[in-house]
């Protein structure tokens, strides 16, 4: 708590921070251990684990809400396919750009070598 006030959350009131941390602890997002008269809070999950849990919860809700459970799944597959295609296109552009840079560099080196010979 004291570390937060001193480092990252200087502009927030002490009581606001305390209430927020307490609420996050009660929701199970944080763990806390007693250190003297104070508490040390720590995240219960890593960022990756939190993303996975949130996504899993959202998918479960989506599947429960849909009468035909295959519909959300097929949409999800479609979205993932589009995302993968976009990622591959971006990578292809990256390789092309890098190749152009490499060609430029080689031409520059050749010119410099030519000047050196002259």
């Amino acid at each position, binding site marked *: 708590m004291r570390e937060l006030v001193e480092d990252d959350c200087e502009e927030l009131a002490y009581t606001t921070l305390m209430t927020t941390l307490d609420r996050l602890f009660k929701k199970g997002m944080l763990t806390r251990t007693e250190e003297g008269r104070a508490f040390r809070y720590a995240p219960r999950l890593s960022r990756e684990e939190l993303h996975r849990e949130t996504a899993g919860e959202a998918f479960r809700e989506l599947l429960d809400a849909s009468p035909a459970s295959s519909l959300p799944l097929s949409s999800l597959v479609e979205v993932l396919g589009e995302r993968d*295609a976009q*990622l*591959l296109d971006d*990578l*292809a552009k*990256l*390789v092309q750009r*890098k*190749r152009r840079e*490499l060609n430029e560099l080689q031409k520059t080196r050749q010119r410099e070598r030519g000047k050196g010979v002259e």
Partner: protein
Amino acid sequence: MTFALRGLVVTFSVAVTIYVCLSILVVGSWRDVWRFTKRYSAANCADLLFALRIAPMVVAVAITAAFVIPSFLLLEPRTLREPIGGVPLALGLCGVTAIIIGLRNSVQALKRASRMVARWAGAAVGASFERLDEQSSVAVLRSTVSPPLTAAGILKPAVWLSQSAEAVLTEAELRGALRHEMVHVRRRDNLRKLMLQLVAFPGMMALESAWLDAAEMAADDAAVSSASEALDLAGAVIKLSQLGPLDTPGELTTALVHSPVESVDARVQRLVAWDELHKTPAKNPASRYAFGLAAASATMLVLAYGHILFAMHAATELLMR
């Protein structure tokens, strides 16, 4: 209980106990070792992950063969009719079952891989040979139904190339992609995959997946020797990924591209960032100390072998009761 049967129970129960304990240790600690080895070359990283994966079985077999069996044969009275406790009997049965399951998994994987290759061979349209090293070469077979680029086979591996892959790649990209598969053949990655089938243990999937990623990166590194070649290989990886939905790598085969697309992303980013620094030999974590350590361990083992046999026999006696 006869001497031979007691010997078998002792052998299998000790082996399975060591195997399970070491496997649990590996499952719990491999990530720390992996983080530490990330500073070394991908090939070293892949070798270390593979060594970690099979270490429980290798160590269990080595200890059993070097100490447990000799201590039993030399120190156990043959005439004694000693009863065997329920725990060693159950452990021994677990050991036999684990071996049977491992063998069954391997045979089934071999059969499935053979059927798959036979299907590709049925649609083969041509073949050529690529030089592997000074003495040997590897067949490159073209097929209409094979995955874009795959190395398959254990004893006599071949590289399979689909017609669509050949059509879409430039000559330089195809050369880079073939060199990548040749590295898998040289490193005997398919044989390593078969060995993994023998040593099944729950919780090892993540380690195996990390090894597969490291093996792909090791093959990428060994297949390129300049920034231009790295870009050619990156181009091949992207083009083959775009040919169709990415599949998981087939059993006992290595493919240039496979799911998930994130692994393609990581490999392409590495290849794009290739520079001359990659050619400076990476530090080998083991070579510096391995020889000295092995020599010292061997000397100590030879000197203390008698004592170790007595201690091992005492331990197995405790286990049997």
